[in-house]
């Protein structure tokens, strides 16, 4: 009965488009939520991978969230913190200590992340050495060999790094002492990176030992961070279940109400079709297939719209872009089609099995 199906759909195109748009919006929201959730999960794994066996020591007053968002405050560790740590009982477990000073600055009108780090920097007669990230180079126009000034200190660009440490492509890397002068923070350190093999001590115990040796500091370990973020993810997952159920509930309600409303308005047509010999099963089938099609098209539309939506959300909340969970495409398609079909089944089967004489008399 393609004639009735296609012509019927065409005659109610705007209603169906409206229903598909509702499905698309809900599906897009669900996918965006899922993408954000997946991205957060991935960032925890990335963080764990990046920290590896290392441990990060920050001033106790530092906001860890702000630190990872590259917003640095005035808090600092004392300049002798590396020596103090080496001399402490925890020192025997630590193979390497890298002291860093982080800060926010502006170079040639572009915002930059200053990273002072211990490294075998060369001595230059014409100024302090610096390596800059590719994005900062693009924004400032600085090239290898160029000079710039920061906080009254002259720097010469040794290199432009296409893949700078920790992905800081707006970073300017320099010796710690030069960073302290440029940022006006003599003797200040904002982070210690500890490396080594914690074979004879568990990470949590070492963290406590470090904090005991450096009062006013806090140690951040992979285990602690993953545990904290895992808690957030678990909460997110719990909400995701509620959001998914609610989302598909909304789809079912909208399609069900829309179908019921259309059934009511088309009662005469249905009564007529039954009167002239159309089987109720066929008519119910047409409505259910139509609803399933609306659901499937809406889900596809939702997927097409989910990318930009998810990236908008990601840009605002996470400061980056997201990958859509492609493994959810087919399940979402089937779920949306199934929910719409189920929602249309009840009103359409009720209408198709009504006594046609009553329907025709009423209408």
């Amino acid at each position, binding site marked *: 009965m393609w004639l009735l199906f296609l*012509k019927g759909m065409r*005659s109610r195109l705007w209603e169906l488009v409206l229903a598909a748009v509702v499905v698309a919006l809900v599906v897009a929201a669900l996918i965006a939520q899922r993408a954000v959730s997946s991205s957060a999960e991935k960032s925890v794994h990335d963080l764990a991978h990046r920290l590896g066996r290392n441990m990060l020591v920050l001033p106790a007053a530092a906001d860890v969230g702000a630190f990872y968002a590259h917003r640095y405050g005035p808090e600092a560790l004392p300049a002798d913190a590396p020596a103090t740590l080496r001399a402490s009982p925890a020192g025997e477990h630590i193979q390497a200590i890298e002291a860093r000073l982080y800060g926010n600055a502006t170079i040639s009108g572009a915002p930059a992340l200053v990273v002072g780090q211990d490294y075998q920097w060369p001595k230059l007669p014409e100024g302090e050495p610096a390596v800059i990230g590719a994005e900062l180079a693009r924004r400032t126009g600085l090239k290898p060999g160029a000079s710039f000034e920061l906080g009254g200190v002259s720097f010469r660009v040794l290199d432009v790094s296409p893949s700078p440490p920790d992905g800081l492509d707006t970073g300017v890397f320099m010796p710690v002492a030069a960073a302290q002068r440029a940022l006006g923070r003599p003797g200040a350190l904002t982070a210690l990176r500890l490396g080594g093999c914690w074979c004879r001590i568990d990470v949590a115990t070492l963290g406590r030992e470090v904090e005991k040796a450096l009062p006013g500091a806090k140690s951040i370990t992979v285990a602690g961070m993953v545990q904290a973020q895992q808690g957030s993810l678990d909460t997110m997952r719990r909400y995701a279940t509620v959001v998914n159920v609610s989302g598909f509930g909304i789809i079912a309600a909208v399609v069900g109400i829309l179908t019921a409303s259309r059934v009511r308005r088309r009662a005469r047509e249905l009564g007529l079709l039954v*009167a*002239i010999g159309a089987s109720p099963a*066929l008519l119910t089938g047409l409505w259910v297939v139509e609803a399933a099609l609306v659901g499937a098209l809406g889900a596809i539309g939702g997927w097409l719209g989910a990318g930009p939506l998810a990236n908008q959300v990601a840009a605002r909340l996470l400061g980056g872009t997201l990958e859509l969970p492609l493994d959810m495409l087919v399940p979402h398609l089937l779920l949306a089609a199934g929910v719409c079909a189920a929602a249309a089944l009840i009103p359409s089967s009720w209408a198709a099995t009504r*006594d*046609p*004489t009553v329907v025709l008399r009423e209408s």
Partner: protein
Amino acid sequence: MIRIENVSKTYPAPGGGEEVHALREVSLQIRPGELVAVIGPSGSGKSTLLHAIGGMSAPTAGQVFLGETDVYDLGVQARTELRLKEVGYVFQTFNLVPYLTCLENVVLPAYLAGAPRKDARARALATLERLGIAARRAHRPGELSVGERQRVGIARAIVNGPRVLLADEPTGNLDPASADEVMAILRELAAGGQTVVMVTHDPRLAAATPRTIKLAAGRLVEDTAAGVAGGPATTAARVAAERSLS
């Protein structure tokens, strides 16, 4: 042959009041090729009788036969098939599907009956030609005059070549000229061997039909085929007599 034996139909009253007796022990026979007008005041059971004959509304008591088939002894699916192939309906308000063209409205029952696409369209077109409305085949119902719409309604009712054509006040919405045209078509169909049962309020049209059945308060009070006014007992006796002869 349509045979109705002691058919009664009762509707439950809305709000739990007294039941509505739409038909009371109606019995009659209609032969193939007969054109019968069913008349009576509003609420006398005319449409209910038509629906009972067409397999649309099961009687509370009694039996309805189309040929040798007891209509309400059939299952729902079989009765739907019967309605599709053996019975055609013409409605007072046409009941055409508004978003389909005339040709598509007419071809619909043929498709529902499983006719191949090409065959169904050819049949629908031939039916429209027979009723003199083929030129309007690509128009939608809203673009036709009421007389033309009713012709499309009749074309849809007869496209599957049903043995019985049931028309519920087919001229009720038409001007006298269009009504006469529709009556001429119904007469022609009856002459071609189809049994036509028509409900009408129009005494002029009823007078122009060979046989008139009159209902009042759900009872058959007059059947001109019997030659005299008669109640259920008279008709039942006549049916019984005819059956004993056959």
